[in-house]
């Protein structure tokens, strides 16, 4: 065997995953996948402003492409599991990396969003579970009746409950915080950084996160104000 032949002893995927840098690459890629879903979901949701027929037809269309829908769902579930597994493992490692903490520590150069990723992430996850139980499965549908297939009715009756809307707006705002750091950070993790692009990327991350938050919360706000009924 020549010296340059690949040795079977170590699997390079395993070695890559075991390094902190490799896990961050996995987090960046899975984060990007979830971001694409967030965009797609927003565009679908905004059809609520075009009336019941439009959004119900869209929901029906999604159900007619069954296999593709499940392919997307499974991909997203795998992405979420990998994203969380990497986060938990890295967080535990970081905790061990400083067994004795500082008596005093100031943050001088980091954004609030970047320092609270460990909070915004789990809260958004809790929200997603609640959100799926409410609008996809229909198990939890407080103070209203869930009608399978009538997305428009479920949406409007769901968000007319003030605390459902408040919880939604809160969670989406945290998603915005998560994206404000994550959208820029994913480029850094896969090794793409350039002094000319970094500032533009950071600004773009802020702008996109803000637009996503505004887009999503426009739905419960319009319903609460009675613009959409």
């Amino acid at each position, binding site marked *: 065997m020549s010296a340059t032949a690949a040795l079977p002893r170590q699997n390079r995927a395993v070695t890559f995953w075991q390094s902190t840098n490799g896990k961050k690459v996995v987090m960046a890629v899975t984060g990007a996948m979830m971001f694409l879903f967030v965009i797609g979901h927003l565009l679908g949701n905004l059809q609520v402003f075009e009336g019941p027929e439009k959004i119900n037809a869209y929901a029906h269309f999604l159900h007619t492409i069954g296999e593709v829908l499940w392919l997307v769902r499974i991909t997203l579930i795998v992405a979420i599991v990998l994203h969380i597994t990497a986060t938990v493992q890295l967080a535990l490692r970081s905790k061990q990396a400083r067994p004795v903490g500082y008596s005093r*520590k100031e943050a001088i150069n980091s954004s609030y969003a970047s320092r609270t990723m460990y909070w915004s992430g789990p809260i958004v996850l809790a929200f997603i579970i609640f959100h799926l139980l409410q609008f996809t499965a229909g198990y939890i549908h407080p103070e209203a009746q869930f009608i399978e297939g009538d997305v428009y009715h479920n949406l409007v009756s769901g968000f007319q409950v003030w605390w459902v809307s408040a919880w939604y707006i809160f969670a989406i705002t945290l998603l915005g915080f998560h994206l404000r750091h994550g959208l820029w950070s994913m480029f850094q993790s896969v090794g793409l950084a350039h002094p000319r692009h970094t500032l533009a990327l950071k600004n773009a991350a802020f702008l996109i996160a803000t637009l996503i938050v505004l887009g999503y919360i426009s739905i419960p706000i319009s319903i609460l104000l009675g613009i959409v009924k």
Partner: protein
Amino acid sequence: MKLTLKIWRQKTHKDKGAFVSYTVDHVDPEMSMLECLDVLNETLTERGEEPVAFEHDCREGICGSCGFMINGVAHGPERATTVCQLTMRHFNDGQELVLEPWRAKAFPAIKDLVVDRRSFDRIIESGGYISVSTGQAPDGNTILVGKETADQAMDAAACIGCGACVAACPNAAAALFTGAKIAHLSILPQGKPERDRRALHMVAQMNAELFGNCTNIGECTGVCPKEIPLEVIATMNRDYLRASWKKREDLEATIPPATEWSANRT
């Protein structure tokens, strides 16, 4: 001016350690932070007490020996300044300064404000070099390097290895240090032949040293006395990704800590 210094005192790495407050009268505003500690230590010696241990060498801000936390910020409140270059005029009369050593599992305590930073040395040892033939010095300008490339490499090479990046990082990660050491070689033509090997080895050593992971928040570059840009971390990640993809053999062989302090990590 008069200052109260609340200093972390710890006899050995096995000792538990605690803060002790000292009042220093007649602090000259033109003194450096280390000179202020020198004055305190003279008083302590005269009183028959143990002087405060701290690391120092050049006192010109270029050797990377000194460094501790002042009021929760690595190297104190001035940006791009080591504690030896930090003059006392930046503080107010009567102020209390909390002096604490770098805290990280990979930087075990030695005494007072001194920690063992040899984990950095092992990262360098694992690949932070280029292999050249010894003998006659090569002719100048045989390998041409563009000004921009040279500047970029120099910006990364400015790292003095003081450890402030690890100290300031909420995850105690050594990404900025390792990134700087990988980047300053990998962007030069002399560093290109060993680029993949270097990234794999140095990253493997960094991860073996029990540093945390990088969350790209940027506290490290904020306290860095040489203002190493966050971009070097991306360079490390890119080189590591590239090398992992191309990898044909098991290269990673990490260097175990072989010192008394590091062996008893606390």
